[in-house]
């Protein structure tokens, strides 16, 4: 089975899953269940979109879709880090931290409450900036003023060391 056939086969599978979900939606009374199903429909459709774009644009390397079993690739997002949440022993001074500003190919690091986090690929930090803030700094105050009571956000970031 070549790459194209494989993609078309995947698309067909998604179409039948979509049909199944739509039938299910008609028979579900519960509001929350419906929302869940709609969300699944949405996911399936974005998968279809992805496959479609792969076929149209013929991206040369398709590492994620070449292997036969459809194993999801490791997400680059820090949502479910593979690494254990132990804090790496790295220590940063403010000057060292300033180098990690996301420019010139450097990663983007920010410090909050004495911890340094990697936000290079965090979706809220496109171009290593976030609502006018730039990476490479201690943003404890800014975090407290905008995300008071949202400590869970820190739990989703990748820790890379401590700030001294």
């Amino acid at each position, binding site marked *: 089975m070549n790459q194209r056939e494989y993609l078309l086969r995947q698309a067909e599978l998604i179409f039948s899953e979509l049909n199944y979900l739509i039938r299910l939606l008609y028979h579900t009374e519960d509001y929350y269940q419906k929302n869940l199903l709609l969300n699944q429909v949405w996911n399936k459709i974005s998968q279809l979109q992805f496959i479609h774009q792969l076929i149209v644009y013929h991206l040369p390397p398709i590492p994620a879709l070449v292997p036969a079993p459809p194993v999801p690739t490791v997400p680059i997002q820090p949502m479910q880090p593979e690494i254990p949440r132990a804090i790496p022993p790295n220590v940063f001074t403010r000057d060292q931290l300033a180098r990690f500003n996301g420019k010139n190919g450097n990663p983007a690091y920010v410090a909050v409450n004495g911890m340094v986090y990697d936000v290079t690929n965090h979706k809220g930090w496109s171009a290593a900036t976030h*609502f006018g803030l730039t990476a490479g700094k201690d943003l404890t105050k800014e975090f407290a003023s905008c995300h008071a009571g949202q400590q869970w956000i820190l739990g989703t970031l990748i820790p890379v060391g401590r700030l001294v």
Partner: protein
Amino acid sequence: MQQEYVLPPEPVSNEAIAKRLTDAARAEIHSGRLQKKNFVWLELTGCSGNIISMMNGTNPDLEYAITSMVNLVYSNSLMAAEGEKAIEKLMEALQGEFILAVEGAVALRNNGLYHVIGNWQGQPLTALQAAKMLGERASHVIAVGACATHGGPSAAKPNPAQCVGLQSVLDRKVIQLPGCPCHPDWFLGTLAHLLMYGEPEMDNLNRPLMFYSTSLHDRCPRKHFFDKGIFAKTLGEPTCLFKLGCRGPVTRIDCPTRLWNGYVSWPIEASTCIGCSQFGFPDQMAPFVVYDITRE
């Protein structure tokens, strides 16, 4: 809240949805349960971009909106009257019930004298006075566009006229429709909802959830490239524009499914999202595009 879903095979295109709503509105008007309300469009410190955007509306168009949905009393861009005659219409509107839409920020400097919108009885009428006077008496107030909702480009640094959003000068609920400009559907949809069902469901920043509930990033056709870490290095590439400064992940709006200019395209087709529908635009959304980027 219990909601009625419209599912395939029923048509769910923009046109079909608009038709269902229009039919419902016609039936309401026919039965006499719905009456046209007076409507004031106040233009303060801005670029008139929102009223121009409204003219791009298709379901319904602006003409239908201002003739059949509401009774347009004042809009300095659209009305025939000018000078004191126009302001007279504005003062007449104050006597009765009316819905107020405001575009543009409120200039505070020198007690509002940095923006005079007309003359009334020989005295200059400032944007600040008009915003307070009308805002306090309107049955509903809708802030349309970035400037009216949070200052937007009018309040961008160094902000010489000391512009602020409408909410800063009004001590009442203001429905916020950020966007630069506001999409005709966001405004006309909110107005239609007000007329037919009252206030729409809103989030903690008073943005209607029917338009502003979901981040643009979550429905972006390029999202799978983000999930797989495939990033564009130039604007022409079809992959994720995150590294170039796309603000989609921090912007809650329905652009990916609604589309612009008669539902044909939207910003991500050509460049990054600049976060125009997010509070803090443009200063907090800068830089719009960068090439000096992080590694993958």
